């Protein structure tokens, strides 16, 4: 290394070839903790170097690359290309069980669709928070159905194809009924008489099939 320095000192006024100067600028910008001005580059490079010209070449070389040579104030630095900023993030994916409120709301929508918020609340016996519905919408497990032809024309919710895919169902009609839930041991006791599966409520039936067929339209 010392030989090299000597050589350079000998050739005091002969600048290294521009390609070498470009390499030097590249190395300095890479290793520096702060942007480096043209003056400092020239001070650090062998006598007679022209950092400004080397920078023009270097800048061109990095065009379209993963990093770019950028001007910061009156100094120069190497920075990540803006479109690759996403690589500087590491996503940690965590899988969590849906909350009980969300599961119940989802279940009601699946079994009763199309169903309004008021109906969900009536079935659950508690109010449904905005966050729960939003979460299910965001997950694309439910979506808005058509408005109900009742006073106020409330919006309804239906389940999506995504929902069916996730739960491995061909249609919402494949969801087991209460009787099957019971025989599968998921229900302990018989429901009080009169509270039978509302899925077969004649009044609702039309709406339900309509809503369900809607699912397969799009």
């Amino acid at each position: 290394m010392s030989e090299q320095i000597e050589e350079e000192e000998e050739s005091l006024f002969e600048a290294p070839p521009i390609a070498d100067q470009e390499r030097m600028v590249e190395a300095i910008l890479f290793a520096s903790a702060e942007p480096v001005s043209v003056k400092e580059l020239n001070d650090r490079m062998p006598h007679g170097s022209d950092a400004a010209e080397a920078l023009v070449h270097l800048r061109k070389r990095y065009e379209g690359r993963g990093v770019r040579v950028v001007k910061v104030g009156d100094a120069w630095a190497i920075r990540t290309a803006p479109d690759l900023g996403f690589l500087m993030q590491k996503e940690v994916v965590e899988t969590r069980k849906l909350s009980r409120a969300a599961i119940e709301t989802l279940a009601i929508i699946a079994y009763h669709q199309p169903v309004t918020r008021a109906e969900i609340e009536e079935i659950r016996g508690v109010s449904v928070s905005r966050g729960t519905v939003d979460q299910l919408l965001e997950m694309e497990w439910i979506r808005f159905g058509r408005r109900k032809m009742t006073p106020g024309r409330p919006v309804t919710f239906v389940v999506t194809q995504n929902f069916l895919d996730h739960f491995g169902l061909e249609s919402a009609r494949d969801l087991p009924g209460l009787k099957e839930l019971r025989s599968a041991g998921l229900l302990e006791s018989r429901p009080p008489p009169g509270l039978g599966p509302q899925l077969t409520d004649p009044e609702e039936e039309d709406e339900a099939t309509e809503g369900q067929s809607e699912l397969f339209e799009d």
Partner: protein
Amino acid sequence: MAEDTDEFQEDQVSVAERMAAEALIVDVDGFEGPLDVLLMLSRTQKVDLRKISVLQLAQQYLAFVEQAKQLRIELAADYLVMAAWLAFLKSRLLLPPDPTEEGPSGEELAAHLAFQLERLQAMRDVAAKLMARDRLQRDFFARGVPEDVMRTRKVNYTANLLDLMQGYARIRTRDEFRPFVMDRDAVFTMEQALDRMRGLIGFAGSWTDLSSYVPEGWDADPGRRRSATASTFAAALELAKEGKVELRQTETFAPIQLRKKD
């Protein structure tokens, strides 16, 4: 004439040797143990370490220790252990081998010492080569402004069909919902069995069939019998583990017997 020169050279060497030895003694603290001293001494032989005269080396070392003693320099124990070992080695090398004696020959020991010296020298050489390499942040450099990697947390919510159905079932049967529990009528728990047996083993001085501990009224219905037998067996194992009873079984599937352990 030729002889003269030789003599002269020999003299020269011995002077150099003496000076080296003195330097060694003065410097004894700077040395990293007897092997290091031996390596240093071996350099005066100016030969390939594999062909070094261990005998001569041993003599040099012993002379070094002797001189150190005269100068009343306190030598660490391992220097003296090495001196004793080299004296032993010297005797082995000088005396004709005793065929009745077991153990390695003087030549083997000498060869090993030469190997150790060569290996230590080799390690020193590569250590120097290693340190002379281009080094990070001295000759080549890492990125001056590393960018932090942001860690973002993304939560994926999930549920399965069972969650969904259980959720629905929970709502539909809310009024008469109770958590799913096994019907315990036909279950004799291990705790029950253990309680029962703790009371009974006091009387089990001789080998008794385990099945006789199954409580009355539990042997008619097969389901109840299974449960009681299983829990009684588990309780017996627990008591054996506690060292309260002994268990035995003559062969596979034969009745299991137990008795109190004193």
